[in-house]
């Protein structure tokens, strides 16, 4: 039986599902009857989530002058609208990593994703977008399609990766040739299935063809460029993908002057280390 996008999506159930608290927080944030305090109380039911939010509020993501030591203050700084994205980011990494294929270097994978998330966020900030955390989430989740393919296809996926590293043929090209779709398509559909908003899942589908995204051209452009930045800055331990071809339209859509790039890359570097410490190394400091 040949593999289809639909059949892979059906199997994605095996990756796990979001715990109830995620839905409760999302519902509370959307419901105007819930006060900030009440949202804070739900958050505090999960000590891991609470600790993480405090660390985020105190990190270079927010550059606060004074330390933040209560959830109420953390929420006031981060804002409830951005809370949803950070909660989702927390749980995807914690819940789904456990189900990844044994041969996948999970840490390396997430490091690339975190770098991409931070880069998306920084580009969005440079463009003065509101709610930059959704850009972080978009970057963080953009390659889940790769994971699903690797988990389900094993050898075939590994062969394509090897071919890519030896011959430089873009991975998405081989996937399209062999399967009829690529990891971006699959990833976008997975996020849609998880009911993430269009501004997050659609750019994921289009991140290797950003010019085709009619509804979210800016988000797609940002994700496309952030992916390139995140590979160029080398977060992984080697043996990773090559930088995909740059789509010049995406650069034009972004409309940022070249002169800000060195400073932007610096900020991305700093925030990357903070984000890894917060999202990946909860238990011990790591190099």
């Amino acid at each position, binding site marked *: 039986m040949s593999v289809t996008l639909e059949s892979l999506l059906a199997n994605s159930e095996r990756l796990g599902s979001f715990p109830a608290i995620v839905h409760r927080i999302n519902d509370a944030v959307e419901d105007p009857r819930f006060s900030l305090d009440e949202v804070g109380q739900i958050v505090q039911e999960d000590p891991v989530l609470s600790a993480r939010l405090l660390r985020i509020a105190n*990190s*270079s993501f927010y*550059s606060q*002058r004074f330390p933040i030591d209560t959830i109420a203050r953390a929420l006031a700084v981060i804002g409830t609208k951005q809370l949803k994205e950070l909660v989702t980011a927390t749980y995807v990494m914690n819940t789904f990593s456990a189900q990844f294929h044994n041969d996948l270097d999970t840490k390396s994978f997430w*490091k690339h994703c975190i*770098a991409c998330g931070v880069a998306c966020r920084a580009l969005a900030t440079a463009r003065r977008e509101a709610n930059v955390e959704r850009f972080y989430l978009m970057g963080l989740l953009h390659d889940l399609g790769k994971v699903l393919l690797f988990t389900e296809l094993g050898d075939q996926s590994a062969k394509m990766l090897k071919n890519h590293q030896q011959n*430089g043929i873009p991975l998405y090209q081989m996937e399209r040739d062999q399967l009829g779709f690529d990891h971006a398509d699959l990833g976008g559909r997975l996020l849609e299935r998880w009911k993430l908003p269009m501004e997050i899942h659609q750019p994921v589908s289009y991140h290797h063809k950003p010019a085709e995204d009619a509804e979210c051209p800016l988000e797609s452009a940002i994700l496309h*460029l952030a992916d*390139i*930045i995140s*590979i*160029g*800055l*080398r*977060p*992984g*331990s*080697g043996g990773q993908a*090559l*930088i*995909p*071809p*740059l789509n*010049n339209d995406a*650069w034009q859509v972004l409309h940022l002057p*070249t002169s800000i*790039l*060195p*400073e932007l*890359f*610096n*900020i991305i*570097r*700093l925030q*990357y*280390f903070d984000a890894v410490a917060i999202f990946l190394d909860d238990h011990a400091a*790591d*190099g």
Partner: protein
Amino acid sequence: MPVYRLSDITPGMTLAQDVRDLSGRLLLAADSEITDKHLRIFRTWGISEADVLPQQSDSPLVAVELDNAGTESNLASGSDELKELFRHCDHNHPFIKELLQFAQLHEPLANGAPPKSAGNDGKVSL
């Protein structure tokens, strides 16, 4: 030309534009090298910022990074890896040029965070 807050200006920097007081009187002309005395005068006259010529390290952030930049041997081996990573890039594109240049000057993210300087917990200070 970057405009710096007075607190970030150090003696030895060069003015890019004239500094005048509130009534328009010239305090120091463009192209002058700024001394300690000038900084005191600026403070007295309530000057809060000045336009200076770009420095070699243009921001506190970059100063930290230069400490951590690759040594010659690091750069040599790093550059093989980079040549490979950027194999299919258009090296003439301005964005790619900037990214490659930055990647050549800095350690890979994989090598870990730069050491934190004393008296600063690593956060950006405002």
